[in-house]
């Protein structure tokens, strides 16, 4: 192929536009379907004959007591603590594993990895019994608390990889200047991995938005429901309110989209500047 043609920005744009549209076809379908009546849902046409904006207005007005505003508020509040916990603690733990040599480090790191490999379905009931005994039902604590203990194995592992990519010479230099390991962490490592913490924040946000099973177990009153749980109320045994369900679930991905859009610059470049080395 002609080299200049391939590097031509116009060609590149065209390629990207076509590819983006292909990836976005489902979204286009989704927007269309969210405006359909139940009867129209089975027709293959993408766009409804008359758009049912009602799906959005009535869907938002969830029940006489609560609107989706409440559920978005609940979820965002929970997300705030999740993200805060993950960001605050994952770097600390990762630094310990990546840089400090202590007894049983290898064994403990293996345990950390192993906790990712045991399917959560078999630990969730003992975990529930534990929180139940601590009288923490119908609160966000069981959902938020784990994020304050290192934010989960995935993120610790990820940050360990980032920190390993920072040249060790920097630590040594600071050490000569009289810095302690704590000083090195706060003055050298933390500023350097700050951008990659944005990655942790984004992934935490997106993944806890989706994690309905724990939310379903721990939250009892509808007033405390997250968006994910409220959406599931539309799927009844005999009646699925597809229009409202699709309308509201489309809205429910918007916070993640907006967050991704504004944060991607930081995290794409963030990882780049610190480097990701094994």
């Amino acid at each position, binding site marked *: 192929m002609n080299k200049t043609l391939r590097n031509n920005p116009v060609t590149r744009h065209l390629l990207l536009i076509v590819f983006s549209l292909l990836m976005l076809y489902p979204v286009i379908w989704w927007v269309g379907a969210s405006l359909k009546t*139940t*009867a129209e*849902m*089975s027709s293959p046409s993408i766009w409804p004959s008359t758009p049912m904006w009602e799906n959005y207005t009535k869907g938002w007005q*969830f*029940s*006489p007591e609560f609107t989706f505003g409440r559920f978005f508020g609940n979820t965002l509040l929970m997300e705030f603590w999740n993200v805060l916990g993950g960001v605050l603690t994952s770097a600390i733990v990762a630094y310990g594993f990546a840089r400090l040599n*202590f*007894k*049983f480090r290898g064994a403990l790191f293996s345990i950390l990895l192993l906790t990712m490999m045991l399917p959560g379905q078999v630990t*969730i*009931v003992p975990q*529930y*019994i*534990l929180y*139940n*005994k*601590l009288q923490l*039902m119908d609160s966000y604590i069981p959902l938020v608390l784990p994020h304050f203990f290192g934010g989960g194995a995935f993120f610790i592992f990820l940050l360990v990889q980032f920190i390993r990519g920072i040249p060790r010479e920097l630590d040594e230099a600071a050490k000569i200047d009289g810095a302690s390991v704590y000083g090195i962490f706060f003055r050298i490592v933390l500023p350097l991995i700050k951008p990659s913490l944005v990655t942790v924040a984004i992934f935490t946000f997106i993944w806890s938005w989706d994690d309905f*099973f724990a939310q*379903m*177990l721990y939250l*009892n*009153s*509808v007033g405390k429901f997250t968006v994910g*749980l409220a959406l*599931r*109320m*539309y*799927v*009844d*045994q*005999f*009646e*699925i*309110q*597809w229009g409202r369900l699709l309308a509201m679930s489309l809205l429910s991905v918007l916070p993640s989209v907006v967050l991704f859009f504004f944060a991607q610059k930081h995290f794409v470049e963030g990882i780049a500047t610190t480097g990701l080395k094994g």
Partner: protein
Amino acid sequence: MKQTVYKGLTLLMLSAMLALTACGSGGSNKGESNAPGDNGDSNAPVKLKIMWQGADIRHQAMLKTQEVYTSKNPSVTFSPEYMAWDDYWKKLPTLAASHSLPDVLHMDGAYIQEYATRGTLEDLSDIDLTGVIDEKTLENLKIGGKLYGIPISRNAQGMAFNKEALEAAGIELPKKDWTWDEYFDFARNARAKLPDGVYPISDTDTWDFYQYYQMSFGKGSIIQEEGKKFNLDKELFMKFYGIHAEFREKKIVPPADMVSSFKENDPQADPMASGKVMTRGATVGSVGALEQLMPGKIDVVNLPVGPEGGGWAQPTIFLSVSTDAKHKDAAKAFIKWFVTDKAAGETYGTNFGIPIYDEIYTALEPTLAPKEKLGKKLYDTSIDKAMPFSPAAAGWTEWIDNYKKTMDAVMFGQKSIEEAYNEISKSGNAIAEKSGK
């Protein structure tokens, strides 16, 4: 230094575990000690934990009913928890495991066997329902001689058909008390008159639909004696699925990959609502949903009958009291009021189906919506020939899943009917034997 850290950690870990085990053994008897308002002082305030499942209309009606109850019994308030069907049945086992089931809970015919047999529900035989629910109905609902749920509505199994499309194609409509032969003939005749891609009846892969066939010919239910006896009639099994195999070949039933995409009551995937099939099984509850998907187009008939009858008519929605309940008497009093009081009935209306108590139903009758009328019609057509409701016993859920998977393999041509019979009866006998021990 290293040693101390290690020792310290070991100690920490051990003490953490000890503390947790201590909690573990101490926690279980907590439930029984603090039960104010029970036995004795009836005016002490009681907060009843109550859980149910359904759609929003039902939730609202249920909440209002509780308000009415509180206004009449000011000492009783409620802590409600409600969700849709799937989540409800997902959450319940975990609650049972942690001994935190609510005082009052919604039960369903498909689940009550498991929960009752495994000791999570209270016997409610002592609630006096004379003149409200007839003795025979209650007797049928007993599991091991005990009543674990008070029925709140009536249900029946029949069939729905696409009246509009069948009439348009000039096909004679199904008639009340049609026989299985007439059902199959209906399918054969309709095939010729229907356009390509539209089918008179659907294929079947679930155990209950075959069971209706076996029972109507007097061969009894498949799972008997609370799961200790397994009874699958080979001759009828071979005949029933043999006919369906023939139909598959003649395109009287849809192809296998279409059948497995069907999902009842889902507007996109319902066999009837999607326009693919002319008939399907329906209950009082589900026919209303179907009516909403295809308003004015459908009608109902009872399931095909044999010498013994056809289909069933029996309550499948219950209110139960859990063994974890902290206020058992208050819970029972509420349930009794819920089933027998007219003010209660007026408030929840037909949100749980046709109310079990005739007086409540008669008061509601003039206000019924078309979908509810259709449900009532289904109930009325089914009741004369109805056979006993024969649910699976506790411990049989997996066999039910495997039945469907095996029959799917037959549908896709991967297994012969005989092989399927052998597999299904082998695993059924094994479970029956295990339950017998």
